[in-house]
């Protein structure tokens, strides 16, 4: 009797495992499960028929049945995992996309190169202990010239042809009036360390190197014991920060009515590194800004006793720096605002 059972059971097992191997997708697998392990399956029928057996047979058969059932269930799970993995692989393959197509657009604007230069310079001088202030663009003759030691009818006025609004009011020709305004605001307190970025205006014909409107960054330091060597040291630190650690500055004597001594400041040519090229006309140096020790008369007129305080001032053109830095050959490009030009500064 038990042999019959055993044979039958073995036959069911063998058949079930064979058909399981043939089930190739989730659907077939589910059908197999109902068929082999469900209530109406051969195994199910055998379980139900076990009621008529002796307790011993029932125990033996029950154990055998259970073993087969567990084996088949395990086989089913293994097969299921196998098929799921295969189906998932298929699905993933179907989901393959062209990763070389462009991504969804995130619009990117660009900071204007002049603003970029101003911000960088502000950051450098802020780290050197300077504060940043701004001043009016419409100035008085008094602040723009007279308090800077440029009286009326002084030949130095030719250095800066001026847009006047009235006899006394004008568009500032430089940011230097803020030297005086800053000293007036500080009312004799020290130290003074400011930089002043801003738009300035000169009656120049626009061409590749001139613009009737441009951007200056003024610097002013006033304290006891400020030396001309401090001017050089500060500008050298600035040059290294802006153009790299191998930079050096060279001072050349010059003249500005509001500084004494005055100098033009050169940098090692950013194009050739000092070897001499067309850009620096073979000299290895490029002029970058004007500077000097604050003129004693300017200090005195602004309420700082020139026998006690000294200081230095400098003024640089943001356009000039931008042109050097980005290889711009014509200053007008900075005011044309061609988006094909500006968008090149997206990453800058």
């Amino acid at each position, binding site marked *: 009797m038990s042999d019959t059972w055993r044979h039958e059971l073995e036959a069911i097992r063998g058949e079930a495992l064979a058909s399981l191997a043939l089930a190739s997708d989730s659907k077939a697998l589910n059908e197999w499960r109902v068929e082999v392990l469900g209530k109406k399956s051969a195994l199910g029928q055998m379980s139900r028929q076990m009621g008529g057996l002796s307790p011993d047979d029932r125990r033996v058969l029950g154990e055998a049945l259970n073993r087969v059932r567990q084996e088949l269930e395990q086989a089913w799970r293994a097969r299921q995992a196998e098929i799921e993995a295969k189906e998932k692989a298929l699905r993933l393959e179907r989901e393959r996309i062209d990763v070389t197509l462009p991504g969804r657009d995130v619009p990117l604007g*660009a900071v204007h190169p002049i*603003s970029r230069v101003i911000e960088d310079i502000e950051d450098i001088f802020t780290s050197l202990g300077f504060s940043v202030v701004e001043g009016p*663009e419409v100035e008085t003759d008094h602040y723009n010239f007279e308090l800077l030691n440029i009286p009326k009818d*002084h030949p130095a006025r030719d250095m800066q042809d001026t*847009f006047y609004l009235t006899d006394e009011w004008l568009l500032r020709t430089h940011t230097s009036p803020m030297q005086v305004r800053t000293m007036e605001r500080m009312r004799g307190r020290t130290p003074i360390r400011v930089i002043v970025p801003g738009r300035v205006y000169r009656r120049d014909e626009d061409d590749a190197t001139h613009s009737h409107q441009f951007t200056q960054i003024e610097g002013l330091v006033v304290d006891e014991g400020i030396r001309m060597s401090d001017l*050089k040291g500060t500008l050298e630190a600035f040059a290294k920060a802006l153009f790299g650690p191998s930079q050096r500055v060279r001072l050349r004597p010059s003249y500005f009515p509001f500084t004494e001594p005055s100098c033009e400041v050169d940098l090692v040519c950013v194009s050739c590194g000092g070897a001499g090229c067309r850009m620096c006309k073979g000299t290895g140096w490029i002029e970058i800004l004007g500077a000097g020790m604050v003129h*004693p008369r300017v200090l005195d007129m602004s309420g700082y006793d020139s026998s006690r305080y000294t200081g230095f001032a400098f003024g640089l053109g943001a356009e000039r720096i931008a042109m050097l830095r980005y290889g711009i050959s014509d200053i007008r490009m900075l005011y044309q605002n061609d988006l094909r030009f500006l968008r090149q500064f997206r990453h800058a």
Partner: protein
Amino acid sequence: MRASYKWLAEYLDLADLSPAELADRLTSAGLAVDAVEPLNRGVERVVIGKILEVRPHPQADRLKICQVDVGRGEKLEIVCGAPNAAAGLVVPVALPGARLPGGVEIRIAEFRGVSSHGMLCSADELGIETRYLPKRDVEGLLILPEDLPLGEDVVPHLHLDDVVFDLDLTPNRSDCLSIRGLVHELSAILRRPHRFPASVPGPGASGECPIEVRLETPRCPRYEAQVLEGIAVRETPLWMKMRLLAMGVRSIDLVVDVTNYVMLEWGQPLHAFDADAIAHGTIVVRQAREGERLVTLDGQERALTPDMIVIADPEKAIGLAGVMGGENSEITPSTRRIALESARFDGASIRRTGQALSLRSEAQQRFEKGVDPAAVSNALHRATELLVQLAGSHPVGAPRRVPAEADAPKPTVISFSPRACARFLGVDVPEDEMYACFESLGFGVARGEDEWRVEVPARRSDVQLPADLYEEVARLYGYHHIPATSMRLPVEAPESSDDLKLVRKVRRALVDWGLCEVRTYALTSPEAEAPVAPSGVAVPLLRPMSDDRRTLRRHLLPSLAEVARYNLAHQVSGGAIFEVGKVFLAASWPQDALPEERAVLGMLWFGEREGHPFERPRPYDFYDAKGVCDALLARLGIQVAYRVSHHAYLHPGRQASIEVGGVMVGTVGELHPDVGDRYEVGRAVYAEFDLGRLFPLASSEVRVHSIPRHPASRRDLAVVVPLGVESQALVDEARRTLSERGVLRMVRVFDVYTGVGVPEGHKSLAIALWFQRDERTLTDAEIDDAVKAVLRAWETAFGAKLRS
């Protein structure tokens, strides 16, 4: 200022320095040399020759065949086309193998059957700047003095073996506007003595000067005159012509050339009058009279003003002092007596006169920057000496000097501390070095222990203060000796303007959201602004450079629209741009106050918005702009309300003012189609913020509140309202209605629909309401009740009906 190397070398030993080295030394001492130009621009193997015979060319009317002696015994046959070729003339001859400027090489050539063994040259062919030569030297062959040795190289004899420095002098160094001044300077730079006389002896003629001089204006502190008689020679010698040419001064005739030559040598401008044109033998220096007119040497009639100084006789003006002489007293070929003037005039006045008449003479430039008072007499003596030597003139009487007593120019005395100087420069310049600087400059020094007394001669009027002496020391010792030192950092952290930080924040945000920053000109024109019709008046420039840049801008839109127009015209299909700039506002002009400068952020969206390449580009619209405004305001921590606004330059139905507590801080709107057309930008959207009002409201402070633990419930309502009802009104009404219950967390409009199913003149708004309380979960009944209340309020206020 141009300077001849050879002229300088006359007074100073320069043999060991090449012109390029000299230029470097000048530049590093503060006299920037822009260019070093050899006068000889490439003349080689051109010799002096004499035309012995001229006969016509048998085949060509305009050509001549010349027999030329170049000092070799044999005659050369040279074909020449110059009309002035004539026997007996000494001329430059380019021999075969010679080179001329521009790379021309001379060979034996045949001209219609006649071989030419060289070429006779004009000034132009020799590369000489003909604009500085008198007309007769420019037309045809350059005629050389007869006594030049035939066959010798023409270059030294033509004085072309010179080099010219083009100096870019700073306005304070008027002392270097002369050869003597430059020699003084070089003497200090090179530390070697100069060799010129400190003064020039007077002409030696005695007796009364036939000319009286009356000074009637304080603006002429000194006037000296010398009368000379007889002009036997009127042709300027070649050396002087060439020296003037090297210095960039045009040769005119001998008398005028001598005055210019002496001006270049001494820096003191001189003028020569025809003495017989001076009525009553009296020169009056006075202010011009109202309405007075004078024809100047250039043939122009000038309207004079009382601010100008004139040289006059008792009857009429004969010259504009220090600027230009009068035609009525000009030296002419018939002039027999010369009155030479050497004077000092007030520089500021000369400068104003030159500006008023748009004149800019060499004399004027020197007067306005200041001339050495000691040069007045010396220059007069030197010019007299040269006229006697070169023109065969005789001085008549002694010079007239007014005032009669010589004014001994007072040297400036400056007290100087070597230690303070070294401290100021930050470099330990040895005291002996400082002393040597001053000495080589010709400054007198009385050395004391701590304080020196430095006497500065009047020719260096730019040196007045100790700081000026520090500069002299620094530039002569060498700026390169100054080390780079660092200052102590201040204890207090720098206080920078908050506004600048906010501008940066705004710039960063806008760029991150796809806008490009632009920078435009602040000068514009009322025409360019007309489509915007800004309020107030445009502030005009007194002397604009062009019509389209003659007023200060009152609005940013015209500037941004110009950028958009330019880009649309240059293959850019669209973009979003912004600028932070100032506008200048005035209620009227002129007015008592300066124009108001208002910082404005302007933004413009124009053309098409390009998204993903697979999506179709679409025009920018109002909501693109508003979205950026919203985001920007959120970034600045500012809550605003949008209200319908009524700017004529914007689309009447697509614009809003942006308000905080009833105060307008900005505007956003689509351009009125007419405005878009006038700016040639089509459909575009503009937004602006008044930063002066916006920034004080900005806040970066954060106080976090706890995240509610109880769930929120969302209810979506679709209501039909008349088209004119703004969605914001429904939002506000819902908030107001439920404000006391404290259950409404958020309201958001998420759809607008018109069309099928919605009555004509109406729209359907889909609005989501989120209900939530912090302390407990709301019941459905509470929420239903709140929704009903909102619907009731909407119906009452706007006639809103729930859409079925």
